[in-house]
């Protein structure tokens, strides 16, 4: 049951927030709005699932926004200018992003450098590379794009579950299973708990580090493809600043930034909370978009303070016992 209580709190906040919004604007409680919420935040959900692994393992990945930007430009150019079939372009883009993540993981492990600064360099590198490819927005007209954007499962009540929302849900569920049920997932928690202990217990720390950053970049690549579906274009400035939204979602979802604790489902709920704030502001109409940032900041603070409190509570019995023994 590792990390479940914080995610539970996130779920309660989400439900309460949703209920509060629904009382004020009854229209929010419709499958239409929920469907849009999933579609609009699909790319964020995918990349946040990957970030959850990185943060639980005690690292951080600042390069994801740039990888998304790079992928959209690469895919657009490959399909529209280089005449690649879309599926081949997707595979190539994913291979590139996975290799990029693996390289960052390798640098972090081999040279024993802080992930923060290595992925910061990665952020500059990926964004720079996408600028080099093209600084213009490239519209994508391939038929697969219109097919995918037209595809949707009808929900009762007029809502649409779009293809990209389904991709996101599949990845979130797959990610949650990977983290909970596999040896890989257990190792991720072990790394976040303590690298030294994990290494002594026989976890291949280096391989794990490479794999974790590879997973994060790969999911950022998928998020990039989804983003290109969402906008039907590739643009080198797309998804600027998404790494911070992603980290915020992970933290709001109850994952400890010090590592060792957290869940993919919590992150997914965190993404939905951010989406809900945005939806509420859209419905209200009088509030400006910058309230999203302030509200996210306040939520972030509330959740971190809560976690801090929980950690302090968890430690207290230990010190008490130690005090009683002495």
């Amino acid at each position, binding site marked *: 049951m590792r990390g479940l209580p914080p995610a539970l709190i996130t779920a309660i906040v989400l439900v309460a927030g949703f209920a509060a919004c629904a009382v004020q604007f009854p229209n929010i409680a419709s499958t239409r709005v929920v469907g849009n919420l999933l579609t609009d935040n699909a790319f964020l959900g995918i990349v946040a699932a990957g970030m959850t692994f990185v943060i639980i393992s005690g690292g951080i990945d600042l390069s994801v926004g740039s990888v998304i930007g790079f992928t959209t430009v690469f895919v657009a150019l490959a399909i529209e200018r280089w005449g690649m079939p879309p599926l081949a372009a997707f595979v190539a883009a994913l291979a590139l992003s996975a290799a990029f993540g693996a390289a960052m993981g390798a640098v972090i492990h081999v*040279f024993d450098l802080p992930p923060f600064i*290595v992925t910061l360099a990665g952020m500059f590198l990926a964004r720079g590379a996408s600028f080099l490819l093209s600084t213009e927005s490239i519209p994508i007209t391939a038929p697969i794009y219109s097919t995918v954007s037209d595809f949707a499962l009808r929900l009762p009540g007029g809502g649409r579950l779009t293809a990209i929302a389904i991709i996101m849900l599949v990845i979130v569920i797959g990610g949650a299973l990977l983290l909970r049920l596999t040896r890989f997932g257990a190792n991720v928690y072990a790394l976040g708990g303590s690298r030294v202990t994990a290494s002594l217990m026989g976890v291949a720390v280096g391989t794990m580090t490479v794999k974790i950053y590879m997973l994060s970049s790969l999911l950022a690549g998928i998020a990039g493809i989804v983003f290109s579906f969402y906008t039907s274009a590739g643009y080198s400035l797309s998804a600027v600043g998404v790494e*911070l939204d992603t980290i915020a979602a992970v933290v709001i979802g109850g994952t400890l*930034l010090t590592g060792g604790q957290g869940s993919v489902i919590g992150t997914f709920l965190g993404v939905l909370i951010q989406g809900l704030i945005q939806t509420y502001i859209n419905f209200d109409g009088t509030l400006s978009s*910058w309230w999203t*940032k302030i509200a*996210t900041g306040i939520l*972030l603070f509330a959740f971190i303070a809560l976690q*801090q409190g929980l950690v302090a509570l968890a430690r207290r019995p230990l010190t008490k016992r130690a005090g009683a023994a002495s």
Partner: protein
Amino acid sequence: MTALLPRRGLAQILALIVILAVDRVVSPQFFDLRLQDGRLFGSLIDVLNRGTPVALLSLGMVLVIATRGIDLSVGAVMAIAGAIAASLADTHSLAVVLAAALGAGLICGLWNGFLVAVLGMQPIVATLILMVAGRGIAQLITEGRIVTFSSPDLVWLGNGAILGVPVPVAIALGMLILTGAVVRGSALGLLIEATGGNARASELAGVGTRAMILSVYVWCGVCAALAGVIAAADIMGADANNAGLWLELDAILAVVIGGTSLFGGRFSLVLAVLGALIIQTMNTGILLSGYPPEFNLLVKAVVVLTVLLLQSPKLTGFAGIAARLRRTKA
């Protein structure tokens, strides 16, 4: 370590000289200076002038990093201070404008410092809050518009000159001397390094680590606010969306290039400012070379990676072994 001291900074100075030389090759007039209306002009002055905001940010950031912290909110604090300065500039005196803007920076720093020093949050998380919310606050102040002003006093801060030296450069130099005098002229710098080296041990040895951490974040906030005021004065307006955007990363980069370890425990103010100058010299060089400015990010990434690898404990370990081998041979 003492034997290494004179050699510290050599790499950075050499790097700056190399980049300056490359700039001279791409643009033959690079070192030309001329005096016009009592102010120096030329590419070199331009480098100094444009490098001012990042140099100011790195002055605060280097102290924060020396305590093993990091401040992600400086860009947002710049936006807040710029927004305040721009909206007050035409109706209040310069003293009031500066007091309000720098006061806002001070409060932001207090907030960050409170979270880190008192609540014990991880610095990257604690400052992420203000980084996300701060830009929203700045937009709230400007009501989402780009606020322009024409107050000659404030404009002078961005475009004026003292004895031919542009005012921003003079301010940055003054701040460098002031910070240096305060932290190196007293034991403060040592105590900051002690806090970063091992907070627990320092606490036990009687260093007020909490006060130390709180004050470096406050100083970082004030420096960021000053950078924000200068950036606003430079463009005669405040753009809450773009003021200081990504400059936190440039500031961290400048500090890292300046050889300050992200693991805390030692710092150099001069080298951090030198790092900011190196970044700006690269930016200006790329601009002058006629290459698209998009190259900037790639070049920066390569430089960061190189510096990182040079600083890597493993590599320096190898170098140390090699040096010892050489010494034993000789």
